[in-house]
């Protein structure tokens, strides 16, 4: 830890750092309740339409790029693991390991986005971008487009969340850790970022079957 680090004091409304940390965590959990309903509403919409148009959705989903989604699933799951390892290292005062695992986490997130970008490129080629570049495939009817609207909205929102996550990890690396503010005594900010990261990961776990596994059983 850099010697110049000032001793960390709780904010005015808290009695102790411990209380501040607990409060931050509770805040993140409450936020995730909210996020769950946000994505939940989207997935609900999706299921309603999938129930009305099972064949069309199956036909449309065949054009989703399975390998991109699957590889990305593995990447995100791995990144959650590295995130946990980073927190663990932080808790045990292993500064180098913590930094290493965090860099790995952010990098995995970046790879996810790259693959997603490539998948979007393939989607453009495949003319499955409603409004912009869309040609219904046989068997899709007009409902196939509903599937693709869902696809773009869901993956787009997920990518935004992941980008925010990467930003948070970088913020941890470049500010909080550099200034020595993450210590075994107070690593709550890192934990909070970790909770968020796992949530973004979990969202993909739900989106994945909706997008890539329809009609492939």
């Amino acid at each position: 830890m850099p010697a110049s680090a000032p001793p960390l004091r709780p904010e005015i409304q808290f009695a102790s750092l411990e209380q501040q940390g607990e409060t931050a965590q509770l805040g993140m959990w409450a936020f995730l309740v909210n996020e769950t309903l946000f994505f939940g509403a989207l997935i609900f919409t999706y299921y309603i339409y999938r129930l009305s148009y099972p064949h069309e959705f199956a036909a449309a989903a065949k054009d989703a790029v399975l390998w991109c989604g699957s590889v990305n699933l593995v990447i995100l799951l791995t990144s959650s693991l590295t995130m946990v390892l980073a927190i663990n290292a932080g808790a045990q005062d292993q500064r180098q390991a913590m930094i290493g695992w965090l860099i790995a986490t952010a990098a995995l997130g970046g790879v996810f986005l790259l693959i997603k970008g490539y998948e979007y490129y393939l989607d453009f080629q495949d003319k499955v971008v409603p409004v912009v570049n869309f040609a219904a495939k046989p068997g899709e009817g007009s409902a196939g487009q509903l599937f693709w609207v869902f696809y773009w909205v869901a993956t787009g929102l997920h990518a935004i969340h992941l980008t925010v996550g990467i930003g948070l990890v970088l913020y941890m690396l470049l500010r909080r850790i550099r200034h020595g503010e993450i210590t075994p005594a107070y690593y709550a900010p890192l934990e909070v970022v970790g909770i968020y990261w796992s949530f973004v990961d979990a969202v993909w776990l739900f989106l994945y079957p909706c997008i890539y596994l329809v009609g492939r059983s």
Partner: protein
Amino acid sequence: MSVTTVERGPAAEPAAAASEPSYLTGENTVASWLLTRDHKRIALLFFASITFFFFIGGFAATLMRLNLATPEGLLQPAVYNRMFTMHGIIMVWFFLIPSIPTTFGNFFVPLMIGARDLAFPRVNLASWYVFNLSGLVVLFALVMGGADAGWTFYTPLSTSYANGYVFAAALAVFINGFSSIMTSLNFIVTIHRLRAPGMTWMRLPLFIWGIYAVSGVMLTATPVLAMDTFLLAVERFLGVGLFDPNHGGDPLLWQHMFWFYSHPAVYIMILPAMGVASEIIPCYARRPIFGYSGMTMALMAIAILSFFVWAHHMFVAGISIYSGVAFSLMTFFVAVPSAIKVFNWTVSLHKGSIIFDAPMLYALSFVLLFTLGGVTGLMLATLGIDVDVHGTYFVVAHFHYVMVGATVSAFFGALHYWWPKMTGRLYPEIWARFAAILTFVGFNLTFFPQFILGYLGMPRRSYTYSPEWQSWNLLSSAGASILAIAYILPLLYLGWSLLRGRKASANPWRATGLEWATRSPPPAHNFERTPVVALEPYCYDPERDTYVTQEGVPHAG
């Protein structure tokens, strides 16, 4: 969650704190207000914003009532349609939903639980900025000519047919949601983690319980609306047909998702008001509230059940008969806890020593008008009757009774009750009582005739109507002008009291809550020493005219 309270150390430097200036008189530059992290200043910022929007919404209502005074009307149909749409949107999202939580909630949650601030002061300030951003967007929509799809944005009218600035209006509602979410998240965490020593759950004032319940509802309902308006905006902007039957979409899906939010939202509007009434009534009846634990349970029951009744807005919309029946039953269930509350408030007057000051007059009108609004709500919940009166002025009258009659009355009650604490000045009592009575009279004159109009068959959202209904409409318009005066009056005399009003003591109403244990107006960090709570709230004794504060300090009359 744990029931134990978090231990807190003694305040930093007691000696320095004693001479701390009040939150109003501290640093007073523009920047010190716009960048403040003090929940009390943020509360006042919110107060300014929502008052502004209340008058914009009221201005639209004034135009509407003017138009409806004659069957032919004054306004162009397009203008009238835009007026009621903007009236609904602004009143609901820019005034009533934020009203009590963001002003009195912000100001008094930390004070009443004995904390120095909310858990996340920066989030709190951000919430105000986001709110104003959404306000700018809605004003943009208004200035450009307004949206014309009704506040309910029913598809496919809103997506494919309406010509107004529906996209901007939906966007404004979307952004507004984030402000709600930030505020409610802050309250939940604060109430869980920052209570003063001794402030157990069952010692929380009922206002805190109301805010807690409403925050839970906001946190879980608002994201659904956010997603819903997001999809609406996508559809409107790109024309992809998510809710349009011509593209395979389902128009009823929009309604389901909209009401999944908006029904809980009507309880978002009433729960804080119930909290306010539960503060005022014991204080002015000088006796403990009747059935404190029943009241807390009723609040939570309403909050939870409110999520299972949304389709009662869709009884005639083509949902299956079975879901109609199921949702009707659930709607009756949600009314039961409301009934408990009404009876408990009433019985709280029994053997009190009642003082009829303005806050109490507002609180009593709240109870009466809520009951009348509530029983007409039950008529709407009765399937056979809803088939007849859905989409008529009966519904308009019902929701104005609960939203305006009940919640706005509670809002004004809270404003008067806490005015001395917030500003350090007393308001002129005679004027305030006059305004309270005028509100009650004007309100009933405005909206009671609408029940009759509704049952006679006058459809809502109509710029014109058949001549035989004119006398009722005229009565309603006349009432609205009285109501307008009654709402403008407080603006005048409260403004006067800011400059000339008598200075208020720390506890002018001889109330028991922690917020009265500190100076009026409070110092920047609320308390000169951390309060320690010893008692449940509302320890008033009408027999000896004494009371004991929550810190356990007894006071003679």
